[in-house]
């Protein structure tokens, strides 16, 4: 399993460096803008004139002058969708992409159990995601003292934890879909679609309260965002982590029973009652 963790991290090093550097630079940039925001007179008044449809996607925007509101508006409110696409793409391709390329046909003949492959790769993804968020956190933390963004390292770190849990949840969803659907790109498409719908539902439910009951059953409803700076909602966090664990366990169960496909052997169609696949 450790070999697979190492191997997955090696494969994802480009993503870690790319996303890490990008988000680190973004953090530096946004922190440097924070002090200039205070000098912008009438900014909040201007915001109040914005159409409610636009403000609906940034629920804490009226608190933008506070560190919490600023970080939520410029980072945590939409990083779920940006980094979510990374998590979904990485997880949907974690095993199935190698299967589609025929690579798994060789690897599965090695004395590493299917569980070892599965958990090794998933752990690699989790570590890679945590690394990206850690680098991103440093991008906010390092310049914070000199820009008036008066938050301790821990306060700044807190909202990264709900973001991490949400990313793992959507990654786990994509991984499960990849085990149930005939192609990795279908799993990526479906999970990405659900993430986008969920994100849009935040804004739409803020405009139209009738949609709120639907929103209440989606993962992003339980996502704290920048509000976690003031303290973590452990109930929500554990709930999201629990659902992620359930989805990963189901994906693992499917992988245990999965036939490793190669071209020409069939089995590339949408399986009927795939979740009930038996080990015959």
């Amino acid at each position, binding site marked *: 399993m450790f070999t697979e963790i190492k191997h997955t991290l090696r494969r994802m090093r480009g993503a870690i460096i790319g996303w890490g550097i990008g988000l680190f630079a973004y953090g530096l940039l946004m922190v440097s803008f924070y002090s200039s925001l205070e000098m912008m007179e009438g900014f909040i008044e201007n915001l109040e004139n914005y159409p409610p449809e636009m403000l609906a996607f940034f629920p804490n925007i009226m608190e933008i002058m506070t560190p919490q509101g600023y970080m939520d508006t410029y980072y945590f409110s939409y990083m779920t969708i940006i980094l979510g696409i990374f998590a979904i793409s990485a997880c949907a391709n974690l095993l199935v992409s190698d299967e589609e390329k025929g690579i798994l046909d060789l690897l599965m003949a090695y*004395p*590493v159990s299917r569980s070892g492959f599965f958990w090794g790769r998933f752990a690699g993804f989790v570590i890679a995601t945590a690394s990206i968020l850690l680098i991103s956190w440093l991008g906010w933390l390092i310049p914070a003292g000199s820009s008036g963004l008066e938050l301790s390292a821990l306060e700044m770190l807190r909202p990264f934890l709900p973001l991490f849990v949400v990313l793992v949840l959507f990654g786990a969803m994509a991984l499960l879909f990849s085990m149930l659907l005939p192609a990795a790109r279908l799993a990526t498409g479906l999970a990405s679609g659900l993430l986008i719908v969920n994100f849009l539902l935040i804004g739409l439910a803020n405009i139209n309260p009738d949609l709120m009951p639907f929103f209440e059953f989606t993962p992003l409803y339980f996502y704290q965002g920048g509000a976690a700076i003031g303290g973590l909602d452990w109930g929500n966090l554990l709930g999201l982590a629990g659902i992620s664990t359930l989805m990963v366990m189901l994906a693992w169960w499917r992988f245990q029973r999965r036939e490793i496909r190669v071209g020409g*052997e069939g089995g590339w169609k949408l399986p009927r009652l795939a979740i009930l696949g038996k080990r015959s």
Partner: protein
Amino acid sequence: MNDKNVIEIRDLQKYYGKVHALRGVNLEVKGGELIGFLGPNGSGKTTTIRCMLDMIRPQEGTIRIFGFDPQVNPMQVHSRVGYLPGELNMEANMKVARALRYFTELRGNSVDWGYVKQLAERIELDLSKQIKNLSKGNKQKVGLVQALMHRPQLLLLDEPTSGLDPLMQQEVYHLLKEAKAEGTTIFFSSHIINEVESLADRVAIIRQGVIVEEAKPGTLVGIEVRRAHIRFKDIVDVSGLAQVEGVTLLSQDGGSTVTLRVEGELDNLIKALGNYPVSDMNLERQSLEEAFLAYYESPEKEEI
């Protein structure tokens, strides 16, 4: 060779949806044996091998590799096996050495790296190249090195010389013979008859998911079909020869030369020829390819 079965397959059945890919494969392979698994594309060679490695699961039948059920103890099987897939694919963005290091890590770093380099030298594999820049033949060499590098007790090779030039094919034959001399059991699939004929102790021919013949390559060549070219001293009526059991008249040249197809033993033909003024007779032993094709052309064999 020893008497212990390394591979035991009983009544293996595998469906892909409605396609009945394996229709009751039965096979035993003794320790130290080098067995050729022969059959055309789509006959079930790769499916059988992949069932042995628990990559796919048969609907019926049993498999035992070194006494282990691959579905129950895949690790016990995989640790003893070196496998070369029919269509070898590896991560493109790795150097050959890095890929082989990864494979040794998957084997718990129990592989002697000096032996890996030795194998690479023998088959002229450049370890510093990127996988994506390798030709099909060179990729196949990587596949061979990774299959052999841990000196496995059993080699499962799906068309091992595919893509290799004739010189490299010979080197691979040497490597396999050396592995066999060290006691490795080798099960390799091929559709190259000469390869099987020159390497294998025994041949199993699979057709439409059923093993239709198991024999020594020489036996297969000898027993099935011969072509007899007979020249007579005079022009004769050869219609009587065509009545002999197992004999078919293929061609007649002016009445003094005939070509016959003889199935099975020659006894009946020789006795019949006693009544003819035979000047010369040339028996052409069929190649394994012809024996193989005979299985696929003969309508009676289709029901086997």
